[in-house]
Protein backbone atom coordinates (compact mmCIF):
# COMPACT_ATOMS: atom_id res chain seq x y z
CA UNK A 1 0.00 0.00 0.00
CA UNK A 2 2.75 2.46 1.00
CA UNK A 3 4.73 1.57 -2.13
CA UNK A 4 1.61 2.12 -4.24
CA UNK A 5 0.98 5.48 -2.56
CA UNK A 6 4.55 6.51 -3.21
CA UNK A 7 4.18 5.59 -6.88
CA UNK A 8 0.93 7.54 -7.11
CA UNK A 9 2.44 10.60 -5.46
CA UNK A 10 5.44 10.53 -7.81
CA UNK A 11 3.23 10.08 -10.89
CA UNK A 12 1.26 13.19 -9.87
CA UNK A 13 4.28 15.43 -9.26
CA UNK A 14 4.42 16.85 -12.82
CA UNK A 15 0.71 17.69 -12.69
CA UNK A 16 1.34 18.94 -9.16
CA UNK A 17 3.61 21.67 -10.52
CA UNK A 18 0.77 23.10 -12.57
CA UNK A 19 -1.68 22.62 -9.69
CA UNK A 20 0.61 24.74 -7.52
CA UNK A 21 0.85 27.31 -10.35
CA UNK A 22 -2.88 27.90 -10.67
CA UNK A 23 -3.26 27.45 -6.92
CA UNK A 24 -1.07 30.52 -6.49
CA UNK A 25 -3.44 32.45 -8.76
CA UNK A 26 -6.36 31.41 -6.53
CA UNK A 27 -4.38 32.48 -3.45
CA UNK A 28 -3.82 35.94 -4.93
CA UNK A 29 -7.51 36.34 -5.75
CA UNK A 30 -8.49 35.14 -2.27
CA UNK A 31 -6.21 37.67 -0.62
CA UNK A 32 -7.80 40.44 -2.68
CA UNK A 33 -11.27 39.25 -1.60
CA UNK A 34 -10.30 39.39 2.06
CA UNK A 35 -10.15 35.68 2.86
CA UNK A 36 -7.65 34.91 5.62
CA UNK A 37 -4.99 32.25 5.00
CA UNK A 38 -6.67 30.02 7.60
CA UNK A 39 -10.04 30.18 5.82
CA UNK A 40 -8.25 29.39 2.57
CA UNK A 41 -6.46 26.42 4.15
CA UNK A 42 -9.71 25.05 5.62
CA UNK A 43 -11.30 25.43 2.17
CA UNK A 44 -8.38 23.59 0.55
CA UNK A 45 -8.61 20.67 2.94
CA UNK A 46 -12.41 20.36 3.14
CA UNK A 47 -13.57 21.24 -0.39
CA UNK A 48 -10.38 20.35 -2.33
CA UNK A 49 -11.74 21.13 -5.80
CA UNK A 50 -9.92 23.73 -7.88
CA UNK A 51 -12.53 25.14 -10.23
CA UNK A 52 -15.19 25.18 -7.50
CA UNK A 53 -12.88 27.09 -5.18
CA UNK A 54 -12.19 29.64 -7.91
CA UNK A 55 -15.93 30.29 -8.25
CA UNK A 56 -16.36 30.44 -4.46
CA UNK A 57 -13.65 33.09 -4.18
CA UNK A 58 -15.20 34.93 -7.11
CA UNK A 59 -18.54 35.05 -5.24
CA UNK A 60 -16.88 35.93 -1.93
CA UNK A 61 -18.34 39.31 -0.92
CA UNK A 62 -20.19 40.18 2.29
CA UNK A 63 -22.93 39.38 3.01
CA UNK A 64 -21.89 35.94 1.80
CA UNK A 65 -24.49 34.36 -0.55
CA UNK A 66 -24.28 30.98 1.21
CA UNK A 67 -27.08 29.26 -0.72
CA UNK A 68 -25.88 30.52 -4.10
CA UNK A 69 -22.31 29.47 -3.34
CA UNK A 70 -23.40 25.97 -2.31
CA UNK A 71 -25.55 25.60 -5.43
CA UNK A 72 -22.76 26.83 -7.70
CA UNK A 73 -20.33 24.35 -6.15
CA UNK A 74 -22.89 21.57 -6.56
CA UNK A 75 -23.25 22.30 -10.29
CA UNK A 76 -19.53 22.72 -11.00
CA UNK A 77 -18.73 19.53 -9.15
CA UNK A 78 -21.56 17.51 -10.68
CA UNK A 79 -18.86 15.82 -12.75
CA UNK A 80 -17.56 14.16 -9.57
CA UNK A 81 -20.67 12.00 -9.68
CA UNK A 82 -19.41 10.66 -13.01
CA UNK A 83 -15.78 10.61 -11.90
CA UNK A 84 -16.76 8.63 -8.80
CA UNK A 85 -18.77 6.19 -10.90
CA UNK A 86 -15.88 5.66 -13.32
CA UNK A 87 -13.64 4.63 -10.40
CA UNK A 88 -15.93 1.73 -9.53
CA UNK A 89 -13.73 -0.98 -11.13
CA UNK A 90 -10.70 0.28 -9.21
CA UNK A 91 -12.54 0.02 -5.88
CA UNK A 92 -13.77 -3.55 -6.54
CA UNK A 93 -13.75 -5.47 -3.25
CA UNK A 94 -12.72 -2.52 -1.05
CA UNK A 95 -14.50 -1.75 2.23
CA UNK A 96 -16.89 1.18 2.67
CA UNK A 97 -14.42 2.85 5.05
CA UNK A 98 -11.70 2.75 2.40
CA UNK A 99 -14.09 4.10 -0.22
CA UNK A 100 -15.32 6.91 2.05
CA UNK A 101 -11.78 7.85 3.06
CA UNK A 102 -10.06 7.78 -0.33
CA UNK A 103 -12.86 9.43 -2.32
CA UNK A 104 -12.42 12.71 -0.45
CA UNK A 105 -8.98 13.11 -2.00
CA UNK A 106 -10.07 12.44 -5.58
CA UNK A 107 -9.46 15.51 -7.75
CA UNK A 108 -9.56 15.82 -11.55
CA UNK A 109 -5.80 15.47 -11.83
CA UNK A 110 -5.09 12.37 -9.75
CA UNK A 111 -8.23 10.78 -11.19
CA UNK A 112 -6.98 11.37 -14.74
CA UNK A 113 -3.45 10.17 -13.92
CA UNK A 114 -4.89 7.09 -12.20
CA UNK A 115 -7.29 6.27 -15.06
CA UNK A 116 -4.43 6.55 -17.56
CA UNK A 117 -2.28 4.24 -15.41
CA UNK A 118 -5.24 1.89 -14.88
CA UNK A 119 -5.66 1.46 -18.63
CA UNK A 120 -2.04 0.33 -18.76
CA UNK A 121 -2.72 -2.00 -15.85
CA UNK A 122 -0.71 -0.08 -13.26
CA UNK A 123 -3.08 1.60 -10.81
CA UNK A 124 -4.62 0.73 -7.44
CA UNK A 125 -6.57 2.64 -4.78
CA UNK A 126 -3.25 3.28 -3.02
CA UNK A 127 -1.93 4.89 -6.21
CA UNK A 128 -5.03 7.10 -6.29
CA UNK A 129 -4.68 8.06 -2.62
CA UNK A 130 -0.96 8.82 -2.92
CA UNK A 131 -1.75 11.12 -5.83
CA UNK A 132 -4.50 12.80 -3.78
CA UNK A 133 -2.19 13.46 -0.83
CA UNK A 134 0.49 14.82 -3.17
CA UNK A 135 -2.01 17.14 -4.90
CA UNK A 136 -3.66 18.34 -1.69
CA UNK A 137 -0.22 19.29 -0.33
CA UNK A 138 0.97 21.19 -3.40
CA UNK A 139 -2.48 22.77 -3.84
CA UNK A 140 -2.35 24.09 -0.28
CA UNK A 141 1.25 25.24 -0.66
CA UNK A 142 0.49 26.98 -3.96
CA UNK A 143 -2.63 28.76 -2.71
CA UNK A 144 -1.00 29.88 0.55
CA UNK A 145 2.10 31.09 -1.28
CA UNK A 146 -0.13 33.05 -3.68
CA UNK A 147 -2.01 34.44 -0.67
CA UNK A 148 1.25 35.69 0.84
CA UNK A 149 2.63 37.02 -2.44
CA UNK A 150 -0.71 38.47 -3.51
CA UNK A 151 0.58 41.99 -3.53
CA UNK A 152 3.85 41.16 -5.29
CA UNK A 153 2.66 39.62 -8.56
CA UNK A 154 0.62 42.40 -10.06
CA UNK A 155 -0.47 40.76 -13.30
CA UNK A 156 -0.47 36.96 -13.12
CA UNK A 157 -1.89 36.95 -16.67
CA UNK A 158 1.41 38.25 -18.00
CA UNK A 159 3.03 34.97 -17.03
CA UNK A 160 0.07 33.01 -18.43
CA UNK A 161 -0.63 31.62 -14.95
CA UNK A 162 -4.33 31.67 -15.84
CA UNK A 163 -3.56 29.34 -18.75
CA UNK A 164 -1.87 26.74 -16.50
CA UNK A 165 -5.22 25.06 -15.85
CA UNK A 166 -6.11 24.82 -19.56
CA UNK A 167 -2.61 23.60 -20.48
CA UNK A 168 -2.47 20.81 -17.95
CA UNK A 169 -5.98 19.58 -18.75
CA UNK A 170 -5.22 19.61 -22.46
CA UNK A 171 -2.22 17.39 -21.77
CA UNK A 172 -4.32 15.14 -19.51
CA UNK A 173 -7.01 14.84 -22.18
CA UNK A 174 -4.44 13.55 -24.67
CA UNK A 175 -3.57 10.73 -22.28
CA UNK A 176 -7.21 9.56 -22.43
CA UNK A 177 -7.15 8.97 -26.21
CA UNK A 178 -8.00 5.35 -27.11
CA UNK A 179 -8.12 5.48 -30.91
CA UNK A 180 -10.32 6.33 -33.85
CA UNK A 181 -13.50 5.33 -32.03
CA UNK A 182 -12.98 8.40 -29.84
CA UNK A 183 -13.15 10.91 -32.70
CA UNK A 184 -16.96 11.26 -32.88
CA UNK A 185 -17.59 11.39 -29.10
CA UNK A 186 -14.75 13.85 -28.58
CA UNK A 187 -15.84 16.23 -31.33
CA UNK A 188 -19.39 16.09 -29.96
CA UNK A 189 -18.18 16.76 -26.40
CA UNK A 190 -16.06 19.74 -27.44
CA UNK A 191 -18.82 21.29 -29.56
CA UNK A 192 -21.50 20.81 -26.89
CA UNK A 193 -19.23 22.25 -24.21
CA UNK A 194 -18.35 25.36 -26.21
CA UNK A 195 -22.00 25.97 -27.11
CA UNK A 196 -23.27 25.30 -23.57
CA UNK A 197 -20.61 27.53 -22.05
CA UNK A 198 -21.82 30.35 -24.27
CA UNK A 199 -25.53 30.00 -23.66
CA UNK A 200 -25.94 28.51 -20.19
CA UNK A 201 -24.98 30.04 -16.84
CA UNK A 202 -22.44 28.45 -14.49
CA UNK A 203 -20.52 25.32 -15.29
CA UNK A 204 -23.21 23.15 -16.84
CA UNK A 205 -21.06 22.82 -19.95
CA UNK A 206 -18.78 20.27 -18.26
CA UNK A 207 -21.63 17.87 -17.52
CA UNK A 208 -23.44 18.53 -20.82
CA UNK A 209 -20.33 18.08 -22.98
CA UNK A 210 -19.10 15.05 -21.06
CA UNK A 211 -22.43 13.19 -21.06
CA UNK A 212 -23.33 14.25 -24.61
CA UNK A 213 -20.09 12.93 -26.06
CA UNK A 214 -20.16 9.67 -24.12
CA UNK A 215 -23.80 8.99 -25.08
CA UNK A 216 -22.76 8.56 -28.72
CA UNK A 217 -20.99 5.18 -28.44
CA UNK A 218 -23.59 4.09 -25.86
CA UNK A 219 -26.49 4.69 -28.28
CA UNK A 220 -24.50 3.05 -31.06
CA UNK A 221 -24.03 -0.04 -28.92
CA UNK A 222 -27.73 -0.16 -28.02
CA UNK A 223 -28.60 0.17 -31.71
CA UNK A 224 -26.18 -2.60 -32.70
CA UNK A 225 -27.48 -5.03 -30.09
CA UNK A 226 -31.08 -4.37 -31.24
CA UNK A 227 -30.07 -5.17 -34.81
CA UNK A 228 -28.34 -8.34 -33.64
CA UNK A 229 -31.42 -9.42 -31.69
CA UNK A 230 -33.53 -8.89 -34.76
CA UNK A 231 -31.23 -11.07 -36.85
CA UNK A 232 -31.26 -13.80 -34.23
CA UNK A 233 -35.04 -14.00 -34.19
CA UNK A 234 -36.39 -17.41 -35.23
CA UNK A 235 -37.81 -17.69 -38.77
CA UNK A 236 -41.35 -17.67 -37.50
CA UNK A 237 -40.96 -14.24 -36.03
CA UNK A 238 -39.36 -12.97 -39.20
CA UNK A 239 -42.32 -14.15 -41.29
CA UNK A 240 -44.47 -11.60 -39.55
CA UNK A 241 -44.39 -8.38 -41.48
CA UNK A 242 -41.85 -6.15 -39.78
CA UNK A 243 -43.66 -3.01 -40.81
CA UNK A 244 -46.61 -3.93 -38.63
CA UNK A 245 -45.00 -2.73 -35.42
CA UNK A 246 -43.78 0.56 -36.73
CA UNK A 247 -47.15 1.47 -38.22
Amino acid sequence: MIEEMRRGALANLPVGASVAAYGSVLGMLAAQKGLTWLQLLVMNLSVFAGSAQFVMVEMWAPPLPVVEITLAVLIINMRYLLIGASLNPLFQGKSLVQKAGIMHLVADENWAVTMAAYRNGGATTGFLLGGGICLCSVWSMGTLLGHQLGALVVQPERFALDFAFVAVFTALTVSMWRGKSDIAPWVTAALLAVIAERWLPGKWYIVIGGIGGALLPALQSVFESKKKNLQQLPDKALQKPIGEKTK
Partner: protein
Amino acid sequence: MTLAISTDLSIVLAIGGAALATYSLRLGGLLLAERLPKNGGFKRFMETLPGTILLALVAPGIFSAGIHGGVAALATALCAWKTKNLLLAMIVGMGIVAAGRLLTGYP
Protein backbone atom coordinates in the same frame (compact mmCIF):
# COMPACT_ATOMS: atom_id res chain seq x y z
CA MET B 1 -20.52 42.35 17.38
CA THR B 2 -23.62 40.57 16.10
CA LEU B 3 -22.51 41.44 12.58
CA ALA B 4 -19.08 39.87 13.22
CA ILE B 5 -20.69 36.71 14.59
CA SER B 6 -23.14 36.36 11.71
CA THR B 7 -20.30 36.95 9.23
CA ASP B 8 -18.25 34.23 10.91
CA LEU B 9 -21.23 31.90 10.81
CA SER B 10 -21.87 32.56 7.15
CA ILE B 11 -18.20 31.80 6.38
CA VAL B 12 -18.50 28.48 8.20
CA LEU B 13 -21.75 27.71 6.37
CA ALA B 14 -20.35 28.66 2.95
CA ILE B 15 -17.21 26.52 3.29
CA GLY B 16 -19.07 23.72 5.08
CA GLY B 17 -21.85 23.65 2.49
CA ALA B 18 -19.36 23.54 -0.38
CA ALA B 19 -17.38 20.78 1.32
CA LEU B 20 -20.47 18.68 2.02
CA ALA B 21 -21.81 19.12 -1.52
CA THR B 22 -18.50 18.13 -3.09
CA TYR B 23 -17.96 15.12 -0.86
CA SER B 24 -21.49 13.78 -1.38
CA LEU B 25 -20.96 13.90 -5.14
CA ARG B 26 -17.57 12.16 -4.91
CA LEU B 27 -18.74 9.29 -2.71
CA GLY B 28 -22.24 9.23 -4.19
CA GLY B 29 -20.91 8.59 -7.69
CA LEU B 30 -18.81 5.65 -6.54
CA LEU B 31 -21.59 4.05 -4.46
CA LEU B 32 -24.26 4.57 -7.13
CA ALA B 33 -22.06 2.96 -9.78
CA GLU B 34 -22.38 -0.41 -8.03
CA ARG B 35 -26.11 -0.41 -8.68
CA LEU B 36 -25.74 0.44 -12.35
CA PRO B 37 -25.51 -2.09 -15.20
CA LYS B 38 -22.00 -3.15 -16.20
CA ASN B 39 -22.52 -4.12 -19.82
CA GLY B 40 -23.78 -2.95 -23.18
CA GLY B 41 -24.47 0.70 -23.87
CA PHE B 42 -23.92 1.81 -20.31
CA LYS B 43 -20.49 0.24 -20.17
CA ARG B 44 -19.47 2.00 -23.39
CA PHE B 45 -20.83 5.23 -21.88
CA MET B 46 -18.73 4.91 -18.74
CA GLU B 47 -15.62 3.97 -20.74
CA THR B 48 -15.91 7.01 -23.00
CA LEU B 49 -16.78 9.42 -20.17
CA PRO B 50 -13.29 10.18 -18.75
CA GLY B 51 -12.05 11.54 -22.08
CA THR B 52 -15.19 13.51 -22.91
CA ILE B 53 -15.43 15.10 -19.42
CA LEU B 54 -11.83 16.29 -19.59
CA LEU B 55 -12.36 17.65 -23.07
CA ALA B 56 -15.61 19.40 -22.07
CA LEU B 57 -13.79 20.91 -19.10
CA VAL B 58 -11.07 22.40 -21.25
CA ALA B 59 -12.61 23.12 -24.68
CA PRO B 60 -14.38 26.43 -23.83
CA GLY B 61 -11.19 27.72 -22.15
CA ILE B 62 -9.15 27.05 -25.30
CA PHE B 63 -11.87 28.50 -27.50
CA SER B 64 -12.15 31.74 -25.52
CA ALA B 65 -8.36 32.19 -25.31
CA GLY B 66 -8.34 33.05 -29.02
CA ILE B 67 -5.57 32.28 -31.50
CA HIS B 68 -2.84 32.19 -28.83
CA GLY B 69 -4.93 29.72 -26.87
CA GLY B 70 -5.59 27.53 -29.90
CA VAL B 71 -1.95 27.39 -30.96
CA ALA B 72 -0.80 26.85 -27.37
CA ALA B 73 -3.32 24.07 -26.78
CA LEU B 74 -2.31 22.34 -30.02
CA ALA B 75 1.38 22.56 -29.06
CA THR B 76 0.57 21.31 -25.55
CA ALA B 77 -1.37 18.36 -26.94
CA LEU B 78 1.38 17.46 -29.43
CA CYS B 79 4.04 17.70 -26.76
CA ALA B 80 2.01 15.56 -24.35
CA TRP B 81 1.41 13.02 -27.14
CA LYS B 82 5.08 12.75 -28.17
CA THR B 83 6.88 13.06 -24.82
CA LYS B 84 4.22 11.82 -22.34
CA ASN B 85 5.63 14.56 -20.09
CA LEU B 86 2.85 16.62 -18.50
CA LEU B 87 5.08 19.28 -16.97
CA LEU B 88 6.95 19.91 -20.20
CA ALA B 89 3.68 20.08 -22.13
CA MET B 90 2.28 22.60 -19.65
CA ILE B 91 5.38 24.79 -19.81
CA VAL B 92 5.25 24.77 -23.63
CA GLY B 93 1.59 25.85 -23.57
CA MET B 94 2.05 28.58 -20.97
CA GLY B 95 5.21 29.80 -22.70
CA ILE B 96 3.38 30.28 -26.00
CA VAL B 97 0.52 32.18 -24.35
CA ALA B 98 2.91 34.37 -22.34
CA ALA B 99 5.03 35.11 -25.43
CA GLY B 100 1.94 35.85 -27.50
CA ARG B 101 0.66 38.29 -24.88
CA LEU B 102 4.07 39.94 -24.58
CA LEU B 103 4.26 40.48 -28.34
CA THR B 104 0.72 41.76 -28.74
CA GLY B 105 0.81 43.90 -25.60
CA TYR B 106 -1.76 42.07 -23.43
CA PRO B 107 -3.86 43.16 -21.67
